[in-house]
């Protein structure tokens, strides 16, 4: 057993960490959020230049290895800066689907453009009624006049408003809740039959609701009717990524709160000198450590099992959700009212830690899945 990083992993971690420290401070992030796009194209180009967009892909696909541990390293650092650039949507989710299910021609067409930062993508899977049930797909793909067309609505599609190409989960056979009968299609996001309503999420990430009305496709991705395991697998991978992001964000939330407790004076002494506050800071610390541990467990187990270990992943999402909940709330509570202001980063970390708890399945959903496996 060896938990030390390889020299390549160390370099990757250092380079992302340096970027966050030097080029992604809270003020810079605020400016990015206020920009029209809501993310920085300049940063996106930089991510491509530094090879970060290649990290989620195997060497065979032209990437840098594609291990969960590598993904974890990047995302944990991204979490420390609350990076809003659509790495998750484009590289991890859409890119991951193409790498997993695409044919060689599709891979050759899309993957280099993703890795070079030239293509924005999004994966449209959730629907208004589906909640976290990935098999619950109403959106339909049917053959009309010899051509497959998609009709239906997709909810809160991450990067959905900026994507050039969408990957849409649609039902090609069976009933709404069947695992069988779901297929993935590539779709031109700018087609006239696609209506997109974009917005920022409360955590600053860009998203959109999308309506398809007999929209033609750019082709089937993977086997018809058999997309469910592929979707499951990629959502798990994306879940690991946000778990890592949460662990990074929790670290900063704890650091900021600790700093504040050591400097903020009330009743003539620092609030950190009160035992009631000390114990709570210690609890936050323990939660962060437990979260970090279970994240590592899940990443290693997934890596040793071809990138797929549902039970380990759900254990991590459940435990990290619990930690994110406690640390986010305590960070605000121990700061007091100042922690609730838009001007301070703590409140924004809290908001991201909140959305992560409900993204790709809530804490309870994953506890239930863990116990069912």
């Amino acid at each position, binding site marked *: 057993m060896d938990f030390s990083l390889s020299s390549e992993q160390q370099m990757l971690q250092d380079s992302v960490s340096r970027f966050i420290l030097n080029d992604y401070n809270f003020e810079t992030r605020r400016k990015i959020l206020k920009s029209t796009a809501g993310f920085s194209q300049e940063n996106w180009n930089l991510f491509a230049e530094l090879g970060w967009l290649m990290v989620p892909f195997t060497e065979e696909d032209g990437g840098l290895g594609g291990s969960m541990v590598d993904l974890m390293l990047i995302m944990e650092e991204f979490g420390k800066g609350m990076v809003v650039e659509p790495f998750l949507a484009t590289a991890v989710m859409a890119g991951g689907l193409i790498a997993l299910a695409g044919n060689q021609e599709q891979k050759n067409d899309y993957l280099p453009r993703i890795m070079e930062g030239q293509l924005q993508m999004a994966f449209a899977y959730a629907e208004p009624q589906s909640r976290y049930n990935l098999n619950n797909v109403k959106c339909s793909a049917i053959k009309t006049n010899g051509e497959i067309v998609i009709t239906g609505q997709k909810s809160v599609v991450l990067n959905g408003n900026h994507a050039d190409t969408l990957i849409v989960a649609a039902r090609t056979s069976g009933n709404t809740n069947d695992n069988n009968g779901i297929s993935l299609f590539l779709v031109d996001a700018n087609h006239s039959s696609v209506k997109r309503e974009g917005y920022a999420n409360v955590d600053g990430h860009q998203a959109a609701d999308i309506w398809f009305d007999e929209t033609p496709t750019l082709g089937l991705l993977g086997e018809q009717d058999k997309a469910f395991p592929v979707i499951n697998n990629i959502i798990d991978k994306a879940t690991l990524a946000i778990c890592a992001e949460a662990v990074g964000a929790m670290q900063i939330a704890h650091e900021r709160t600790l700093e504040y407790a050591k400097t903020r004076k009330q009743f003539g002494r620092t609030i950190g000198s009160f035992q009631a506050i000390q114990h709570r800071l210690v609890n936050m610390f323990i939660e962060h450590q437990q979260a970090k541990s279970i994240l590592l467990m899940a990443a290693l187990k997934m890596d040793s099992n071809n990138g797929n270990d549902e039970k380990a992943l759900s254990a991590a999402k459940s435990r990290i959700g619990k930690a994110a909940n406690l640390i986010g709330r305590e960070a605000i509570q121990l700061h007091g*009212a100042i922690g609730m202001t838009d001007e301070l980063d703590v409140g924004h970390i809290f908001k991201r830690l909140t959305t992560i708890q409900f993204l790709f399945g809530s804490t309870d959903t994953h506890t239930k899945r863990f116990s069912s496996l």
Partner: protein
Amino acid sequence: MNLNFTEEEQDFQQEVGQFLQEKLPKDIAEKTKNSLHLSKDECNEWQKILHKQGWSAINWPVEHGGTGWTPTKKYIFANECAKAGGPDVIPFGLKMVAPVIYTFGNDEQKQRFLPDILASNVWWCQGYSEPGAGSDLASVRTTAVKEGNKYVVNGTKTWTTLGQHADWIFCLVRTGEPSAKNQEAISFLLINMHDPKITVSPIITIDGKHEVNEVHFDDVSVPAENLIGEEGKGWTYAKVLLTHERTGIARVAISKDRLIQLKVLAQTSPDGENKLLDDAIFSQKVAQVEIDLLALEYTELRTLSAISTGQAPGPESSILKIVGTQVIQAIDELYVEAAGYYSMPFVPEQFHDDFDGQWIGPDMATNSSLRYFNNRKASIYGGSNEIQTNIISKAVLGL
């Protein structure tokens, strides 16, 4: 002991219900039910309707225009209002400064201020917290120096809720020698917010809203007649006020109604092929909050009953603050959970009256996180829950 309402109380319940049905404007009720922002005009509109009915000052003594209701009637009124979507009155005038004025003010002050508070002709805000005085409220640094028949006020107040609308502010200021012990140097001063030497700067909170402010006083002249009671007694008056603030703070009636609505929402919210309330874990979480709320309701009723037998609300009211805010926050979180993916979009503009774009999410789903974020304040304001815990520890348990 008896749980049933008397015939008179049942009649009263009917009277309140009928009043709300006839007089509560539908748009205000709908916004309140949906936890949406009410404008200054809408708040005043409702409070003036209450005043016309003689019901704006629930807790005041009858001689000043209060209702003289028993705790049971207050309980009935709060529950009927919550059910119908009648908004809470803005507390700063009617619930906070008025009791200080009619308890500690002189006759001239009572005549000058109380009628306008009663009729909601003026908007009050609270000048307590300062950047350096939060939980340690007694360390306020805003000074009021006596010069002839006026005070000259300098300093900064913060977290001033709805101060952007206010005509008047009640402040804790330091009048004593700098060397005086904190509590003995504090006075209670009423200040006109329209003074040009007062500036109000907005503070935006994490839900994107402008609810609180910083208020700066730069050599503001305040007539000495605006001092309540005696110099140096402000801390005593403030404590009375805080106890009043705390009894209302449990917000039981509103939580009860929010919980009923949550269950309806969970019965209709899809979870794939099922409904959310079919989910055993979710429904158990709802039940747990409901049980906590039941206990809280009876803790509050016990407190009210003690008050009706002549006892003042004591430090036990801190229990109401702590548990009440825990319940509020737990319910808010369940709403976020019920909204699922639609808790994420930040689209506050769709709740504006003039919005005509594409609606995102079912009903009010996208408002759920905004309320959850906003109500993190509940365990911080009115004396943080940590301070309430200290109060119980010291004043009740003698630790």
